[in-house]
């Protein structure tokens, strides 16, 4: 029997190469680790009485949100402000999009106003990628349809790393609507790259078997896997993205997949409970579980701020890089 050598620490990705953050699929292990390390150091800033650093002074961060969001947009705005950037929100409901302007034209207008970064949320997968090809600002994907939500994936990784002191070797369950969840995809890429074992759990209509090809385990009965989990990440039912009819009723869903105290009791006592929010209390989680000792839901929010500061800071070195210099 051979003994695996101890893991060697990875060198930091110096210099940082990426101009955009579009997803965790395309990030290396070193890049993910660098973001998490940077975020941990920014976590300290949040604890000071003076919470600002001048890293992005004079820079403009635009939030382009083509879908409703309060939490993520606020978190990005606050992260940018703590780095001393100017921030501006652009929301689709008050935009000229309703007048027929295309998405790219809108973004080009915002680029012309001097945006160094566009934080983009859009209901269509690939929309941030489209912008990255057509504008010169840095693009941060704040959620593209059911594809990716990289900063959410990163803040989940950071929360796990801080609580469990490691990620490699952990068994992490993602529970719920994997099909329509960008959080699930970013978690899958991040967790598997960092060496966790991922179990996707939900009804077959929401958890396609083919996702096993991503290196995950697919399970349909939560009660059978609860005892194996170190971490459980409870995803929200995407009522707005599911075409409907993927499960018979919310009550039946909740019966099989709702995170109740009884299910928590099936797991190890040190089970770490995450939920990307906003949660539907009583559907995915009972209130007692959401507020209970295993829950790190509010720490996720705090870590989200640190992760977004880290991402903005790391990308800022590439803000002025022209697309032509990147071989695009």
């Amino acid at each position: 029997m051979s003994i695996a050598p101890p893991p060697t620490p990875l060198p930091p990705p110096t210099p940082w190469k990426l101009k955009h953050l579009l997803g965790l699929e395309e990030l290396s292990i070193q890049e993910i680790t660098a973001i998490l390390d940077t975020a941990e150091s920014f976590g300290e800033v949040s604890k000071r009485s003076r919470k600002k650093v001048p890293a992005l002074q004079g820079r403009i961060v635009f939030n382009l949100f083509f879908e409703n969001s309060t939490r993520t947009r606020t978190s990005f705005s606050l992260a940018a402000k703590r780095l001393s950037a100017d921030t501006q929100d652009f929301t689709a409901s008050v935009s000229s999009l309703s007048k027929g302007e295309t998405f790219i034209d809108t973004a080009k207008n915002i680029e012309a106003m001097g945006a160094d970064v566009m934080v983009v949320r859009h209901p269509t997968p690939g929309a941030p990628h489209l912008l990255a090809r057509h504008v010169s600002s840095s693009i941060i994907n704040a959620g593209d349809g059911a594809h990716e939500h990289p900063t959410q994936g990163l803040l989940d990784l950071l929360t796990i790393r801080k609580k469990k002191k490691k990620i490699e070797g952990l068994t992490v369950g993602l529970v719920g609507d994997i099909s329509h969840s960008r959080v699930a995809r970013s978690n899958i890429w991040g967790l598997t790259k960092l060496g966790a074992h991922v179990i996707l759990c939900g009804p077959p209509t929401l958890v396609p078997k083919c996702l096993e090809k991503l290196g995950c385990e697919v399970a349909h009965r939560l009660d059978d896997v609860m005892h194996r989990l170190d971490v459980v990440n409870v995803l929200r039912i995407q009522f707005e993205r599911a075409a409907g009819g993927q499960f018979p009723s919310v009550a039946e869903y909740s019966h099989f997949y709702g995170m109740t105290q009884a299910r928590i009791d099936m797991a190890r006592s040190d089970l770490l409970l995450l939920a990307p929010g906003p949660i539907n209390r009583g559907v995915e989680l009972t209130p007692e579980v959401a507020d209970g000792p295993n829950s790190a839901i509010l720490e996720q929010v705090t870590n989200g701020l640190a992760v977004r500061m880290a991402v903005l800071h790391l990308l800022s070195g590439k803000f002025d890089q022209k697309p032509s210099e990147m071989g695009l």
Partner: protein
Amino acid sequence: MQTIQIQGGRVIDPSQNIDMITDVWLGRGRVLAIGGSSETADIVIDATGLIVCPGLIDVHVHLREPGDEPDETIATGAASALAGGVTSVACMPNTRPAIDNKGAAEFVVLQAQRAGKANVYPVGAVSKGREGLELAELGGLVEGGAVAFTDDGAPVSSASLMRRALQYALMFDKVIMQHCQVMELTVGGVMNEGFESARLGLPGMPAAAEDIMVARDIRLAEITGGRVHIQHVSTSRAVELISEGRRRGIRVSGEACPHHFTLTDECLKDFDTNFKMNPPLRTADDVAAVIDGLRDGTLELLATDHAPHAREKKLREIDQAPFGIVGLETLIPITVHGLVEPGHLTWPEVIRKLTIAPAELLGIPKGTLKPGADADVTIIDPNIKWKIDPTKFVSKSRNTPYGGWDVKGRAHTVIVNGEIRYTMPGVEHRNRSNPTA
């Protein structure tokens, strides 16, 4: 009218089982002879090293006129056909308004005559307004010039209407071309359903949505004795179903498009809308099955599904962008790349699927170099290497997944009705009797 001698080319005419180095003589708008002729040539085309074949026929193109002229017109589409080596096209009726009556069909024929490029044959709608509810006036469409019927762009979803269409079309001996897609299974879909769509978070269109309607329509062709042609076959199961139907003597045929035998759903990884088509790009197994179907004759025809869209329409979020790609001008090189170079089909086999086979499907007097036939000839340079540059397309639109590809094979000279209507950039043919003409 001038007499043209096409000299010393490899003449391939599957309608006569000809594949030999010889001359082709054209005059008075007709094929005069293969081999020698007593006439004097006004123009001699040196075809040494080139392939000389009947003008290619594409049974599946969208010319967008009337209604979407920013994408393409009958004139620009017919010119694009020539640039791709295609002398006759059958254009789909999903225009605005739809080609669903005699006058509309006549409009297409008239616009094509005005343009004077490739021959254009309208395909009439199966249902009024392509709404899938009532039969269009199929007889009127035939009188207006329609050579087949389809609601392409969408399927004839109603099994009952499809059955009636197959029956009614029997009195004209015309084929119903069907876009097979069970719509309930593809709501919101933008790409093939499978691992790739799950990875990208994009709504999928399962292969079964195509297979189920192929199976249904073959059975309907069986009970009616009607003729059904399955458009743009993209799945392995559809190929099997067509093969089985043909073995049982049912009047079913199928076509394959170059993108379905050269590209897979993995191409969507960057969300590039130039890879968004319907039926969608499928898996490597499906590509292999389509190629097998072409090899064993299950899929009798090649067709492009030429679907031009103006730049601003494709430059959208992937769910907002329309389906389809420009196909005519990449037909020859992509067929060489996908079928000839890898040894799947020989040149005579490829040319059969683009000449006599589509002519027989549509019942048009084309696709042959028999003496007396219309003088439609495509001369192909099978060895020329070039780079596909969408900005140089003759089509009005640029939406191709093949931009930047280094390819081999291109139309060299295209003759329609005895007139040289297209020559490859850099090629010139002089008139001997009147050198200034």
